């Protein structure tokens, strides 16, 4: 390991320790805030461990809530990918598809994902469907946009090369335009994942019977700040985990280039 790496890791560890230290100092030692407004880090940690097995007060363990959130988020997210990416590619590749889809897309594009929540709850209730739909609308926009932009980056000279070798238009799409677009498409899926995760938590906060957002909302009702913080931590951990998985996929798929050059 290089010396500068060691120094960097040391600084990172230091910052976490300092943060926890100050938190501990303000709550447990100096008692600047009452314990049930902001619990100390030790208390949060013990609640975190406890919540793995304890379904009280919201009727589910931490893993059950995580599982519920992930299930809904991934359902909507995968739908967004399966529909959004091909649609974006087709819009960029075929002028008529673009003309046909564009007016509706331009209308939907600026609507924040969470603005769909009330309508979806009215239509689908507070089960999986409504939340998956909200996630879908949040995630599909970056999928379409980035695929579209990516295909548009195709270099003319690359198409010429294919033409001099006698490539058909389909070959040009699959062998040139899509490989050109891949880094952009991967960036799109990353942005979409962030949007999906925001949307699911927001949807659960507003109307739900399971999930991390629901758990936080329940804890708020009975003033359990420690559970609120545990919920927030779990949201962060899941998000980071999903991003890391996507990073690995990206490295496998995108070769010969940085993902955003």
């Amino acid at each position, binding site marked *: 390991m290089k010396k500068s790496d060691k120094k960097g890791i040391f600084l990172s560890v230091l910052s976490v320790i300092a943060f926890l230290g100050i938190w501990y100092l303000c709550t447990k030692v100096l008692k600047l805030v009452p314990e049930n407004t902001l619990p100390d880090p030790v208390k949060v940690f013990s609640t975190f461990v406890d919540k793995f097995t304890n379904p009280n007060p919201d009727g589910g363990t931490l893993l059950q809530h995580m599982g519920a959130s992930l299930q809904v988020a991934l359902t909507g997210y995968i739908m967004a990918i399966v529909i959004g990416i091909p649609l974006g590619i087709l819009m960029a590749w075929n002028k008529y598809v673009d003309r046909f889809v564009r007016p509706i897309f331009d209308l939907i594009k600026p609507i924040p994902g969470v603005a769909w929540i009330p309508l979806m709850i009215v239509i689908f209730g507070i089960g999986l469907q409504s939340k998956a739909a909200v996630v879908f609308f949040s995630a599909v926009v970056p999928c379409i946009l980035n695929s579209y932009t990516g295909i548009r980056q195709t270099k003319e*000279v690359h198409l010429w090369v294919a033409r*001099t070798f006698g490539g058909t238009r389909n070959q040009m799409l699959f062998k040139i335009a899509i*490989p050109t677009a891949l880094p952009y498409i991967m960036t799109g899926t990353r942005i979409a994942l962030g949007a999906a995760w925001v949307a699911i938590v927001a949807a659960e906060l507003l109307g739900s019977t399971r999930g991390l957002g629901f758990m936080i909302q329940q804890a708020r009702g009975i003033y359990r700040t420690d559970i609120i913080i545990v919920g927030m931590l779990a949201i962060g951990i899941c998000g980071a985990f999903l991003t890391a998985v996507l990073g690995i996929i990206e490295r496998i798929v995108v070769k010969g280039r940085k993902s955003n050059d």
Partner: protein
Amino acid sequence: MEQDRNLDIILKCENVSKKFQTKHRTKEVIGNINLEVRKNEFVVLFGPGQCGKTTMLNILSGLEKTTTGKVFLNDREVVEPGPDRGVVFQSISLYPWLTVMGNVEYGPKVRGINKKVRKEKAEYYIELVGLKGFENSYPNQISGGMKQRVGIARAYCNEPDVLFMDEPFSALDAQTRYLMQEEIMRIWEKEKRTVIFVTNNIEEALYLADRIILFTNCPTQIKKEYVIDLPRPRDYTSDDFLKLREEITENMAHTL
């Protein structure tokens, strides 16, 4: 000398002209060009910047349509690009998502040639351009000179009848450029092909050409042809070389 030259005409260009139609005006780029190229000849198209060299090459390769006139390759009219013509482009045109091997075998792959045969072919041409050992590198891992070598190998690998090269070395530094000129001569002598090579560098033209076609400014026409029969490899500093260089430069100055 005269006898081992193959006198077959492979490429013929009859009364070719080209106008570009933009929104507000038409731009006449190519005046009226007649040209015949013999099999295995190394022809250099030489002319001032922006005179229409790339346009001419694109017409010959079929990427661009003529406004009037016709181009014939092996007595068949050229109407679209095809695998009997290979192009090395002015800008770097490698596919960044493919390795050196992937780029070089691309042409045969599109033509549906089986994997074993095309890999062997690609390996041969990669070695020919001096890139053995770099088969699995991506374009962003190799230098500019090496990229153009890959471009040359890619064009050769499809085994076309005619190779078009559009200022392939213009983006390289002077040192690498000299080296590449020697290389392209070595490759051409080993793997005889008809080559149409575009440049605006007089030394490069004289070093490479069997025949130099001097173009005028836009709308371009053929100003003069020079048959260069200096022995190869040529010496940039020999008297004959310098004399020709002076003559052509002089003639070109009058066109400007």
